[in-house]
Structure formats: C-alpha cells, structure tokens
C-alpha cells in the first residue's frame, strides 16, 4: 500500500505512514499471526493423532511382550493364540501378508506402468479423458466386492487349471488385490509422467527416438520419483488391505509362501479377533495390538525404503 502511494497522493493529503497505513499494517500482521496459528493447529492435530495411535499400539502390546519374548515373536513359525498351548510367531502372519502383497505388486507394477505409459504417451486425448474417470470409478468400488470377486469368481476360475488350489488361497486375493490397487498406481504414475515437460520428450524425438524409447528412456527416468511413490503407496495399501484377504485367503495361520494354500494375514487375524469378544486382559487380546504393531512397522519401513529410493534416484540424475 505504501509503495503505490505517489507524491501526488501525498500532496492531496493522503498520509504515507499515517493512520490508514499503520492500521493496514497492524491488521495484516494480526491476520498473518492468526492464520499461522490455525494452520499450525491443523498440522499439530494430525501429528498428535498419529502419535496417539502409535502410543496406544505400544501401550496395549506391552502386556503381550511381558509374556512372549520378542525373540519368540519374531522367530517362531506357529501362531496359535487361542490354543491351550498358545504360540505367537508373528512371521506366520507376515509370510502370508508378504505373499499376497508380492503377488499384488507383480500384477500392479507391470500392468500399472503399462497403463500409465499408454495413457500418458500413446492414447489420444479423447481416450485419456474417457479412461481416467473410469479408473477413479474403479478406485471407488468397495473392497468387500473385490473380496467376494476373489472368493467366488477368481478362485473357481483358477481351480479349472490349477487342480491343487485350495478354496481359500493366497493367489486369488493377491491377483485381485493387484487389480484393486492398479487404478491408483496407474493414475498416480500417469500424473507423474504427464508432469514431465514436453521439451524433454521433444529432445528425445529430435534424436530419432521412437515413441516407446521416449517413454522408456526419457519419461520414466524423469518421472521415477513419482512412480516409485505410487508403487510404495500401492504396496502399503496391499499390506494393509483387509477385506479381500479376510474373505478369500482363509483364517488359518500357516507359515510359508505357498500361494496355493490359504493362510491368515496380519489384517485378517486382527479382524477375526476384533469380531470375537476376547476378555480384555487375555494375552490373545493383547496379541491383536502386537500384530498391529508389526503391521505398522512393515508399512513404515516400506515408506522409508520408498523415501530413500527416491532420494537415491534423484541423486543419480
């Protein structure tokens, strides 16, 4: 305001540092402070909630770790919390979780990248405009639908050419979960690819690159940090996904990585226990929190790996 006060204004009596300007500055300073407090509160609230959840997880799993040693928790290959002779090897659940997530990523990475490349580099604008909302629609399908799809359609279909496949297995939910996270990974990767400046593509074409070479050698490397983020988040979702596995993978805690057998994942176990009414001081009750803590650690480490991968890739280029 002061900067646009010309000498002519001053001659006509408008004060330069007088009442009006001072009031303006005071008001602006006040609003700045209020806005920054409000924004800080919003940020602090989300951090507090996260810290609170972690706190509860740790607090309620402490009684569990008082009875089961961390070593047993991490190395035993049996998970039988309600048996007479209860065993608590969380790797039993972790192995099933990782198997399903691995299968899901084996579907979602190539298909998601392919779809993203197609949409961003090959598709005509009209096709892209039609497909993008479709993907978002797919993202909105409730996961319970995917679960029944895996159990009642994919498993029987697979059984026609994989005779040894159990009715509950890890393969079908893995494949379906891959399809489930595909729209998300494809659409986030596509956003990252489209953010690559056109000038970079033109540089590739000007050298005689084919469309595919431009995608593979120019666009993907340039969009890599966004693409990694997409797949890490997809992985986190696969690890944390509950409905599909609870419905189609069975609830039998089995250690091992055989996709043809059914097995309980961490999330499936938590949901199973949460639905029963366990006495609040039982070890089985506290094992739910310990399992939740394990899930939290796995997801957190994927996010950390993603963070460092992204940093590393950025440094290479």
């Amino acid at each position: 305001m002061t900067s646009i006060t010309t000498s002519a204004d001053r001659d006509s009596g408008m004060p330069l540092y007088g009442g009006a300007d001072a009031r303006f500055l005071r008001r602006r300073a006040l609003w700045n402070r209020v806005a920054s407090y409000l924004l800080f509160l919003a940020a602090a609230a989300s951090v507090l909630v996260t810290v609170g959840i972690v706190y509860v997880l740790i607090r309620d799993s402490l009684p569990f770790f008082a009875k089961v040693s961390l070593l047993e928790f991490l190395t035993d290959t049996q998970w039988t919390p309600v048996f007479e002779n209860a065993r608590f090897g969380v790797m039993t659940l972790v192995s099933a979780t990782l198997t399903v997530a691995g299968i899901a990523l084996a579907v979602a990475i190539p298909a998601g990248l392919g779809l993203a490349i197609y949409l961003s580099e090959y598709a005509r604008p009209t096709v892209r405009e039609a497909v993008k909302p479709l993907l978002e629609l797919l993202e909105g399908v409730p996961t319970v639908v995917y679960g029944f799809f895996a159990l009642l359609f994919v498993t029987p279909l697979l059984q026609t050419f994989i005779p040894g496949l159990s009715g509950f297995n890890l393969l079908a939910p893995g494949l379906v979960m891959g399809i489930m996270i595909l729209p998300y990974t494809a659409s986030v990767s596509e956003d990252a690819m489209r953010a690559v400046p056109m000038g970079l593509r033109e540089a590739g074409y000007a050298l005689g690159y084919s469309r595919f070479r431009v995608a593979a050698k120019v666009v993907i490397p340039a969009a890599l940090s966004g693409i990694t983020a997409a797949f890490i988040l997809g992985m986190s979702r696969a690890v944390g996904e509950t409905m599909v596995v609870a419905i189609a993978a069975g609830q039998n805690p089995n250690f091992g990585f055989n996709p043809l057998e059914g097995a309980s994942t961490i999330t499936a176990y938590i949901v199973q226990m949460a639905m029963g009414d366990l006495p609040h001081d039982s070890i089985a009750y506290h094992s739910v929190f310990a399992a939740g803590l394990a899930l939290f650690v796995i997801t957190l480490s994927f996010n950390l790996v993603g963070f460092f991968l992204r940093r590393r890739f950025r440094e290479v280029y």
Partner: protein
Amino acid sequence: MQRQLNTLMNEQFDDIPAPLGEASPATELRAEVRNLDFWYGDTQALKGVNLRVADRKVTAMIGPSGCGKSTLLRCFNRMHDLYPGNSYGGEIRLFPEDRNLIEMDPGLVRLRIGMVFQKPNPFPKSIFENVAAGLRVRGINAKKPLDERVEQALQGAALWDEVKDRLQESAYGLSGGQQQRLCIARALAPQPDILLLDEPTSALDPIATAKIEDLLTKLHKSVTVIIVTHNMQQAARISNYTAYMHMGKLVEYGVTDDLFTAPREQMTSDYITGRFG
C-alpha cells in the same frame, strides 16, 4: 572472427548462385522448401514458403514474434507430427537424394536432422549419457566408439575441457550455458546432415552466447545449420544467408550481408532498422 568469416564467405560464395536465383545443380543444395504451407488445426501458420538451404552454410531466419520462424524450423524435423491436428502442404526436398521429407517417415527424418531448442533440455542422466543418447539409438553401443564420439562431440561443442573430469555427473549440475552446449553436443554426436537451432542463445548471458556463436561459425564447415534468432546482430555475425519472415510468409531471402546492407523489401528494411517487430 568477423573478418575471417567475411573472407570465407566471399571466397566460397562465388560458386554458389544467389539463393533465390536460377536453379542450381542439386549437390550444392542441402534442402529446398517448395511452396510450403502449414496449419495448426485450422490456423494457417505458413503460407507458400520457398527457401533454398545451401549445403554446409549457416542460414538464419529472422522476423517479428509470431511470424512462423519456429513453425518453419520444426517442419524440417517433422516435430509437428507429435501433436494431433497439424497438417503440411507443399514440399521440403532433401538433397542429394532429392526426396520430399514431408512424405518420409518422421523417425527417419529425425535420424538425419538434429535440433537444439530454445530452452536447454538435457535428459535426467549423466553428461556422458546425454551425448551418447543419439549414438545409442543408432546402434552404437560399444565402449570405444562411444567414448571417442562423445569426446569429439563435446570438443565440437567447446565443452570438453569444462566437463571431461565429471562426465558421469548429472547434466543438471551444469550451468544454463553449459547445458545448452551439452544439447548442441548431443545433437552433433550422431553427425546430422542438418542442425536446426531455435533461438539457442535467448536464455543465455552474453559470454555464453559468444561461446555458442563462436562454435556455430566453426561448425558450418561440416554441417548445414539453420538457426532462428531474434537477435539481428547475431544473424549478421554468424550466418551466410538470412531469411526474413512476416506473418507466415517468407518476405526476403538473400546473402546475409546484402540483406542487412541493402534489403530489397521495405518490410525487411523496416524490421532491421528497428521500425517494427
């Protein structure tokens, strides 16, 4: 430098006919634009352009903003084919084979005609891999020829001494002027027949500009250069021929010295004396 260039021009230009004069033996021409029209969708951006590009000379294109310089330049490597709705009319004949590049496969055209853009656009790769990119796509992947030709191209772009100890580092660590010379090296490495440059120095400071101009005056002994520039001093300093464009038409084309000292058209004269544009 300027004197050197002038004598060079006077000596070597005697045997080249005036660019718009009688038809010359095809071998002295690198390319000839014949009646070229170009449309962005329904908007006509080029109207009946005729232009003869002499072999291993620097041809400059000048004219007011929006007159179609970039559009014409980008016809030479079919850049417009990347975007839907664009269309060409007329011909750009390539010599000595005498083929119309508007009808060739764009990929083939681009393997022979390199381009440097207004904004430096190195790939997110190492310095070495940037220069090697155009070689790899042509099937040159063995270490020795790659090393040799990358060095040669970087020497040619007057960048070798500055980067020879950091070839494996990211190209994004270079200054703007260095990045632009890297892009020139990248375009030169595959030894294109024609090098297109679209205002290559407009984003650079005077020192970096001088380096690139110096480089271009040396370059044209081995490669045919077509350069778009807003800077008339630059056109005068480095080009052998200059084309003046206005509203999608080529108004005047001639030996650079003639065009700047004795323009035939009033429009050209107005533009170079700064009366509009």
